């Protein structure tokens, strides 16, 4: 593998990492808000509350960063290849959920996540 491809893979992994941090911060913010959403008004109230949490702003920065990286990647690599490598982010999210958010990710959930990753690689690479 030449350096160019390795660099692109590195950038895609970085994009996945940004997405993971993004989701992690959003979920962590929501976890601190004790609210049961039962209707649309409450859903908008939830979003309003999230907007005032510092972690949610990390979220926004990560989204912008990830979008910028992704657009750069797409200008260099094929979409199918990029999608295949990006499927890694399902594993990253599961890992982060269990390690940082202390969610119980059992064997069944891990297995499911890995199957999805394989499935996405198959779907992406066959265009």
């Amino acid at each position: 593998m030449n350096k160019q491809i390795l660099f692109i893979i590195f950038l895609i992994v970085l994009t996945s990492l940004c997405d993971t941090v993004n989701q992690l911060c959003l979920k962590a913010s929501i976890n601190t808000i004790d609210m049961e959403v039962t209707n649309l008004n409450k859903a908008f109230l939830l979003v309003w509350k999230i907007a005032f949490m510092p972690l949610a702003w990390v979220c926004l920065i990560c989204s912008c960063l990830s979008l910028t990286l992704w657009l750069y990647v797409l200008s260099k690599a094929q979409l199918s290849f990029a999608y295949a490598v990006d499927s890694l982010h399902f594993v990253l999210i599961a890992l982060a959920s269990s390690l940082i958010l202390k969610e119980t990710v059992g064997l069944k959930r891990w297995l499911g996540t890995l199957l999805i990753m394989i499935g996405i690689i198959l779907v992406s690479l066959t265009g």
Partner: protein
Amino acid sequence: MTKKGLTLNIFLFLIANIFLETAAQMCFKKTAVSQEGFNIIHHHDIFVFLGHMLSSPFLWLGWLAVLLIFTNWSTILSKIDLSIATPIASLSYVLVTLACLIFLHEHVSLLRWSGIIFILGGVSLVSTSKGDS
């Protein structure tokens, strides 16, 4: 607050999220395509370009969709684990493939179908896994 497992309601919310995301992408694509012939030669062309974009109704429709997606996704995350919600969102790959087959009459290869089977299997495993309480 107790974290419940996946219910049919939340599953429908997740599916709605996938459809909204597809709609948002279509709106942004339509906005971009409407400016296809535009060339940026001078600096002030950038502002003309932005003006054209901002006056496109599809851009605003797209942003509305993004707002709805965020609201919907936040609602979902307030009810279930992140490690359940994210894998199920991968059903978008299945829906896009089906849409290509049904509406665009594209050929779907055997390898791709096997990928779809893998994703469906994974989603069913994740969605029946126990939530913590």
